[in-house]
Every structure is written in C-alpha cells, then in structure tokens.
C-alpha cells in the first residue's frame, strides 16, 4: 500500500514537471489549441452539407412548348436551400449537344434535356422522358445533382399521374359509384413514410463528426504525445537523470501518461466546446458518461503509446511509427464517414481498431443520448484492449530502458 502510494506521488511529480515544461513552451501551446480548432473548422467546412450546395450551374434545354415542361423548369430555377439561396443557377441551351459541350467546357455541372415531344406524349397517354446529363468529372456534385433532378422529375411525374388517375376514377365512377370515394393519391402512393427522430431537428454532419474528432484527438494526444515525450527525454539525456533516481520505472511512465492524459482531455474539451459554440452541436446524453468514455479512450491508447516509446530510439522514429498506425485508424474507424459505407472487408478491419469503439460510444452518447446500458459493450472492449496493451507495454518499457 505504502509502495503504491509512493509510486503514485512520484508519478504526479513527473507529470507536474512535464506540464510545467509544456505550458512554458509558447509555440507548442499555441499549436496545441489551434490544432483542434483547425480540425473542427476544416472538417466542418470542406464536407458538403445541404446548404453548401448553392448556385450550381445547371443547363436546361427545353424543346417542348407545353405547360408541364415549363412548370418543371420553373421548379428547378426556383429551388432554394433552407438558407434561401438558389440551389441551381439555370442557363438555357438549345439541345442536348449544346448541353454536353457546355459540360465539357465546365460551364455547367449538369444538364436536363426535355425533347419536343414531351407534352404531346403525356397528352397521348404515352410515357414521356426527360434526360439527365451528369458531369462525370465531379462525382460528388453529379451524384447529388442527379438525385435532386430525379426527385423533381418523380414529383412532376406523380402529379401528372394523380391528374390522370383522377380522370380515370371519374370515368369509372359513372359505372360504379362506389369508386368515387377512392383517393387518387392512395392509389399512386399506397405507402407513406414518416420520420420519428430520436432527437429533435435535422441530423447535421457536425453532430456526426464531432464525437469522432474528439475520440481521435484524445487518441493522438496520448499516443503521439507519450511516445515523443519519452523519446525527447531520451535524446536530450534527461531520461537518464530520471532512471538513476531511486524511483520505480512505473512512476516514470505513469507520470508521462498522466501529463498526456491531461493534455488529451483539454484538447478533447476544446473540440467539444467549439462544436457546441460554433457548430450548434448538442450533447444529448450525460456529460458524466461522456467524460468517463474519454478517460477510457485515454486508457485504451496509453499502452500503444508506451510500447512505441519503449521501442523507438528517437523522436523521429516514434513519429513515423505513430503516423503509420494513426493514419489508417483515422479513416477506418468511422470518424469521418460511417463504417457502413465502407466495403465489407474494410468493415472487418475497422472492427479491430479500438478507435472505432471509442468513436461509436461517444457518438451514441452525444448524438443519441444513450445511457450506459447502450454502450457497455464498447466500454468493455476498450477496457480489455487497454488492459492487455498495458500488460504488454509496461514490462517492455521496463526492459527497454535498461538494456
């Protein structure tokens, strides 16, 4: 008991010294705060959101003279985002050839071609067609554009169908009066969907990405911070000063772990604060569970940090090793895009990455307001992973420091 107390007080002394050094390093301090800010702002603004799609240049070549096609063109011209900006900036073209030329010249991001027999076909009860010409050099925009256009066409199509079915009902009702009660909309769209959100409001990308970034920043702080801090002291020679002091090896590495934990938590909190203040993210779950999860994340990644610091001879190699691990982790753990969107093989890979569980658990708590009962599996996995890594890392560190 006394020994454990001694190890802990020694490690707090080490941590205090580390933090004192750290807070005096102005340059590092500035980047320490700027890094999460950059991270948030970057992910917040580069990923396309609904509102970021505005004034997309769209070409329309309408050879038809009927009312239906004119309405459709007007709908496209007048479509607005929730901010009130025009989604499309519509330009008019003569035919589909001109549209394709304009796409090649990158004057427009897509085209809609309505042929001259459009209205006639509808009137004659034939299937009319509208051609969408996407800009394949810009897959993301063209995908969204195609979706929006298809929706507009489908809606127009439905309204045409409704008028036609209404006419049919009227005609048949003469023979069979019972049919007069039938609603045309029910025939065309027998199933209607409603959305019952767990949390109020529309889901936004920030709400999705903020918990992941928090998890990632904590991971990077602990892993990179720990490894570079140890190897920096090793290179400077001060590590020898700690090693010849009559303190346990465990105190040295625990001290480092404590100071890095403090740094990781501060950065995680900066991310959360920014997300709340700048991007309107709301924490729906309990703050206590969230903070416990962050600490658990620190615990889970600490072992890897210690292991790398034991194995890497210099700061440079520690950084390189860390980058190798962190980069795939960042992209495979579902921090930036949902794991379900990945190919099956990659989904398996993401299941062995601890960051996946940290991000998932934080997301559940922050976005969905989940309680402990919904995250206990993630908690268990993170705890076991952390404990196993520490059990490997601490003895390795002990052996590595005195060869």
């Amino acid at each position, binding site marked *: 008991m006394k020994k454990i107390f001694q190890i802990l007080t*020694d490690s707090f*002394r080490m941590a205090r*010294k580390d933090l*004192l*050094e750290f807070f*005096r*390093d102005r340059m590092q301090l500035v980047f320490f705060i700027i890094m999460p800010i950059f991270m948030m702002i970057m992910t917040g603004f580069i990923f396309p959101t609904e509102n970021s799609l505005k004034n997309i240049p769209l070409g329309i070549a309408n050879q038809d003279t009927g009312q239906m096609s004119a309405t459709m063109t007007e709908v496209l011209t007048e479509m607005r985002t929730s901010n009130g900006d025009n989604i499309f900036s519509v330009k008019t073209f003569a035919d589909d050839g001109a549209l394709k030329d304009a796409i090649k010249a990158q004057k427009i991001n897509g085209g809609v071609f309505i042929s001259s027999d459009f209205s006639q076909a509808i009137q004659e009860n034939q299937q009319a067609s509208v051609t969408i010409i996407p800009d394949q050099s810009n897959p993301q925009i063209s995908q969204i554009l195609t979706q929006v256009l298809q929706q507009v066409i489908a809606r127009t199509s439905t309204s045409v169908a409704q008028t036609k079915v209404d006419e049919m009902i009227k005609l048949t009702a003469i023979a069979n009066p019972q049919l007069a009660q039938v609603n045309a909309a029910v025939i065309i769209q027998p199933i209607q969907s409603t959305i019952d959100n767990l949390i109020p409001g529309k889901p936004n990308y920030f709400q999705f990405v903020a918990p992941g970034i928090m998890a990632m920043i904590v991971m990077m702080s602990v892993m990179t911070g720990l490894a570079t801090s140890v190897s920096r002291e*090793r*290179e*400077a*020679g*001060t590590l*020898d*000063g*700690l*090693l*010849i*002091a*009559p*303190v346990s090896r465990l105190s040295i590495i625990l001290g480092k772990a404590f100071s890095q934990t403090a740094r990781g938590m501060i950065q995680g909190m900066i991310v959360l604060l920014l997300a709340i203040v700048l991007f309107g993210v709301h924490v729906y779950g309990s703050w206590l569970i969230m903070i416990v999860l962050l600490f658990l994340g620190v615990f889970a990644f600490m072992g890897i940090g210690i292991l790398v610091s034991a*194995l*890497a*001879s*210099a700061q440079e*190699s520690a950084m390189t090793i860390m980058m190798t691990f962190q980069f795939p982790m960042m992209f495979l753990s579902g921090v930036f895009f949902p794991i379900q969107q990945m190919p099956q093989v990659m989904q398996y890979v993401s299941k062995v990455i601890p960051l996946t569980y940290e991000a998932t658990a934080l997301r559940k708590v922050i976005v969905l307001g989940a309680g402990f009962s919904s995250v206990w599996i993630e908690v268990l996995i993170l705890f076991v992973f952390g404990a196993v890594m520490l059990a490997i890392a601490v003895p390795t560190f002990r052996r590595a420091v*005195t*060869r």
Partner: protein
Amino acid sequence: MNDSSDIIEVKNLTKKFKDLTAVDGISFSVREGEVFGFLGPNGAGKTTTIKMLCTLLRPTSGQALVSGQDVVKSPSEVRKHIGLVAEKLILYDRLTAMENLKFFGSLYHIPKQEVVARATKWLKALEMEKWQDKMAGTFSTGMKQRVNIARALLTEPEVIFLDEPTLGLDPQTSRSIRNFIDDLHAHGVTVILTTHIMPEADELSDNIAIIDHGKIIAMDTPQNLKASIKKDNATLEDVFLRLTGRDMREDSHEHIPSARAHMFGGKSRVR
C-alpha cells in the same frame, strides 16, 4: 584489493551489444574517497562501464558492487548512493535552475526545505546563485554544466560519476570545475572521472585506469604510470599514446543512435 574500504568493486564485467563487445571482462576497484581517473580513446568502453555502474545498462556478465550493493540485484539501493554528470546535460531547459534542482531532489524523497537549502548551498559554491530563477535553456554551456553538477551533488551521493565534465567548456569554467572536484575530494566524496584532457586527469586523480577496446590495459597512480615509460619528464599523454597507439578511433556510433543501430546489426531496437 578486496579491502573493506573499496566503494566500487568490479569483477569480470562484460557488456555485449549484439556481436560487438563494448566492455570485455574488466575488473577494478575504487577506494572510498579517491578520485579515480578513467581514461581511454573514444569508443573504448568508458561510458558503457559508467552506465553499467549507474544501473542504466544491464551487464551481459560479471559483477559490480557500488556502495556494497550489486548493480543488477539491487539497482534501487545503488541509485540512492550515486550521482551522475553524463555526456549530455541532465537539465530541463524550460525549468529554472532552482526548479530543476527541486524536481530532481524530490525524486530522492528529500524533504523540500532540505532540498532548497542544499540547492542554495551548491549554487552558491558554483557561483550560480544569481541565476537560480532563470530558465536553464537561457544559460551558456558552462552555466548549464555548473547547475548540472549541483544537481548531481544535491543528493549528497557517496560516489559521483563525472563523464567528461569539462567537455566544451572555456578555461575559466574548466578551472572552476577542477577546483570543485578537488573540494569534493577533500570532503571525502568518491569521484569517478572520465576525460580526454590528460593534464586534468593527471592533476586530479589518485588512481588512473586506461581502457582500450573494452579492456583495462593499465591501472596505477599517475606517478607510477609516468615512471613506467622510459622518457624524461614523461607526461600522462605520453603514457596514453604509448599504450593505446596513435590510430584514430571510429566513435560515431556513440552519438548517433541510428548509426549505432546500424553498427550493431541494423535493428532500431538497439537504443
């Protein structure tokens, strides 16, 4: 040799790094209170030996006792009795001189007031008391080395290892450090000194060991060593060059970890 007043006893101490034998079965002993000069060309095994005696490296074989404690079996006991001034400064640039001393003192579990009292005493003795609240990073090499020595002495060790304490210092600071070593000697502290400056070793040491290729090739008082070669007014440098030859040594592996790793077989695990 196995006197009860021997504070360091080394028997057949060997350290191998992969296929390189850095220290090859050396044996020697150091009497309590003496200044023991440990000389040798670069890469001869001086620093490796000192690191083993300081519990920073584990010997491959052999035995070493420091203050009666085995460096392998009870390293934490050894650590209580030693101080180290290594080739690299053991100081944090972003802590003040006093904060550095307080931090290292606290690791030895010396009461805080006692640490401050000792720190003040040593800083004064080394003429650094004016600078005690300035960041160590702002000091010149000489000033840093003086604080570094104060740090090593703070714990009042029985044995202090000085690995090239005057390396890169101006004549004034070197002089003051040599005087200081003399003072320590007068106070009965055992000093293990490595240096490449032969007159310094000659002036300060009671006994000198010369190590080359991991083996001790001569060990005696400076006077006897000088008398052992047939030359009028022989200096210690004459002895050194006679014994170790005039070839230059490759020692780059001592300073660049990756180069060292390469030399020991290309595994980055080496350091």
